[in-house]
């Protein structure tokens, strides 16, 4: 049993869980949703075991390091955190509907990591710049933030589908929570994401200062994380001070998540210091 095999099974499990959640919504049967929940729990356990095994395997290769050092490892971790958050949310609000929209994110992320020919899943040794205790703190907090925003994005999509006024013709979506509930949950997720994005940027800055002597160098990834931070800061001010809610917040949340995606993937096509993330 090695980490690749386990993570392969986990990918499959996330996929099935997404299908189960979607069917639960379509056929309006919460028992199928429950099955999705149990499968997610299993997938999360497998995901954790897979990451732990990979960590152990890196020591067997004599290049031991936390499995958070390249794009493959970060995607696997991102899937895990996203799944944990949607599961917690599902249990907390006693409704599986959020998972219908959030579980595909976890599935697509880990599937992309495993299947894309451009992403190597080999365990590679750490280059000197990454050999630091800040690596774990930085990647861990950044991805908690990204996952928070990913769930907020799923909620914002839900917001547009749950139209309270016309129940006819869109029966599937009548099962969705009310817009005010979605709006509040989006806000909660964005606050969670914003806190951890802030900590992620800060740990990155502190790390940069101890690795190459300047806490901020306007490298494209740094700049894009700041742009993301600006977008969500705008959202929070618009909401808390100007009283924006609903549709407008959902739109900014979607824009914010596109900025997250660009920070994560797009930046790899721009020149800069973070090239090892590609």
């Amino acid at each position, binding site marked *: 049993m090695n980490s690749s095999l386990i993570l392969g099974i986990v990918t499959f499990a996330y996929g099935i869980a997404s299908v189960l959640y979607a069917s639960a919504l379509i056929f309006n049967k919460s028992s199928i949703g429950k099955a999705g929940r149990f499968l997610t729990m299993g997938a999360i356990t497998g995901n954790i075991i897979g990451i732990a095994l990979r960590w152990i395997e890196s020591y067997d290769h004599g*290049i031991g390091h936390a499995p958070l050092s390249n794009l493959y490892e970060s995607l696997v971790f991102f899937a895990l955190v996203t799944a944990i958050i949607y599961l917690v949310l599902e249990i907390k609000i006693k409704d599986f509907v959020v998972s219908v929209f959030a579980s595909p994110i976890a599935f697509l992320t880990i599937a992309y990591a495993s299947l894309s020919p451009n992403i190597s899943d080999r365990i590679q040794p750490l280059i*000197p710049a990454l050999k*630091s205790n800040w690596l774990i703190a930085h990647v861990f907090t950044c991805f908690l933030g990204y996952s928070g925003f990913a769930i907020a994005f799923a909620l914002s999509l839900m917001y547009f589908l749950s139209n309270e006024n016309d129940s006819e013709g869109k029966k599937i979506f009548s099962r969705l929570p009310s817009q005010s509930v979605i709006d509040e949950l989006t806000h909660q997720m964005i606050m969670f994401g914003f806190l951890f994005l*802030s900590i992620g940027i800060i740990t990155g800055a502190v790390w940069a200062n101890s690795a190459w002597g*300047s806490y901020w160098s*306007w490298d494209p990834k740094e700049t894009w994380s700041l*742009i993301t931070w600006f977008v969500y800061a705008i959202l929070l001010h618009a909401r808390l001070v100007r009283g924006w809610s609903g549709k407008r917040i959902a739109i900014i949340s979607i824009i914010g998540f596109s900025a997250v995606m660009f920070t994560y993937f797009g930046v790899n096509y721009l020149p800069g210091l973070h090239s090892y993330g590609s």
Partner: protein
Amino acid sequence: MTNEQFQERINNKATAGRNLHIIWHFFTSVKLAIVLLLMLAVTSIIGTFIPQNMNSNIYHNTFGHGLYEVLNALSFFDMYHSWWYQLLMFFLSVNLLVCSMDRLHATRKIIFVKNPSYKLSVFKHLKANKNFSIKAFPENLEGSYKHFIEKKFNKCIVKSLENGFVIFGEKGRLTRLGVYYVHLSIILMLSGGLLGSFFGFEGHVNIPEGGSVNTVSLKKSSESVELGFEIKCNKFNVSFYDTGAPKEYKSDLVILENKKEVVKKAIIVNDPLRYKGINIFQSSYGSMPPEKITIAISSASSGITFNKELEIGDAVDLPEGLGTFSLQKYLNSYNFRGHNIGEAFFGTLSLKDADEPVNVLLPLKYPSFDKMRKGNVILSVMDFETSHYTGLQITKDPGVPLVYAGFLLLIIGCYVTFFMSHKSICIEVCKKGGKSRVTVAAKSNKNRLGMNEYVKKISEQLSAMNI
């Protein structure tokens, strides 16, 4: 002073006051903050697509002359340090400061109160409320209810009513300050950055193994800075993984003051040396030109060969009195018929039976390269001493403590703002027949939707209590 002059002065003063008021009012607006954040976000994007601080020739080639001139005039090639980007940040800081002061002034009566008073009437109209009846007299409930609220809230006041009592509980009043922590943290970070840009520096030095420096040339200008001490590099080492990827760059450094060794440390990436406010980081490395080279000189006709160690400028007599060879210079990299053959030495061969001296190329990678010349005398590289130089990034940034304080405050501030709230609760207990009627109502400055759940939970806990 005439009456008119006096009147004019008053008018002037009033206008000045009005102007000040207009400016103040302009900066108290949250709309302005949103617009500034939006402008910062949008302009920041540009700088990630136009590579910053490159050679002007590259920009010339990419954009053409006309566009280059325009972009350059608007500082788009160093836009994060341009006057207009810094002005945006300055406006944001003033906006944050003025806005925070304005709001703090408006809410100071809510936040800083020594003895807050509670009015039952306020709680009567709250949406988050719940009633239930309990088989007990109010006087029997008072003690345990008070105890319950005291445990959950940090302020608890009990007042008697005509036919019962009311308990007010309150906590988290100071969490209302969370948002000001966040704003202050940003001002701290920006002032730290400003301090660093005025009183700090960022420079780079290359020190050959065994060499030392006491000045650093700066990145942004051509100036150099006196360090006040000497940095010596005893040894540089680079190691590789089996895959060929670099594993570790290490420089053995010594700090010397008045020729005396004061600190000794081997630095690697992620583990710098800090001395007297100056930080020394491992950042690059390279090879030094070999100072000595051993070449084999052989005569093609007789086959006689001998080795000779040479330095640049040295000349050596050739065997059989054929002439002399002199080592002229070292070349960092050499292009031979379109191929880069790397480091090479260059010398001239003066033969007795030739009219003109012959140029000889001695690439270090290809020791017997000279055989191709097919001359009477063949020169080949036998041995050369290599040494490295270490590239060190040297920085001084007195703004770092301020920036780090800002970091800490930002995290605390965000946590307090997002996840803590100012809550007040009111529990009214009135006698009704043989029972007590209990009304729970609560309010919070955040998450108003969640208050219904909260009130429900408290009511359940109260009604489930064993009296």
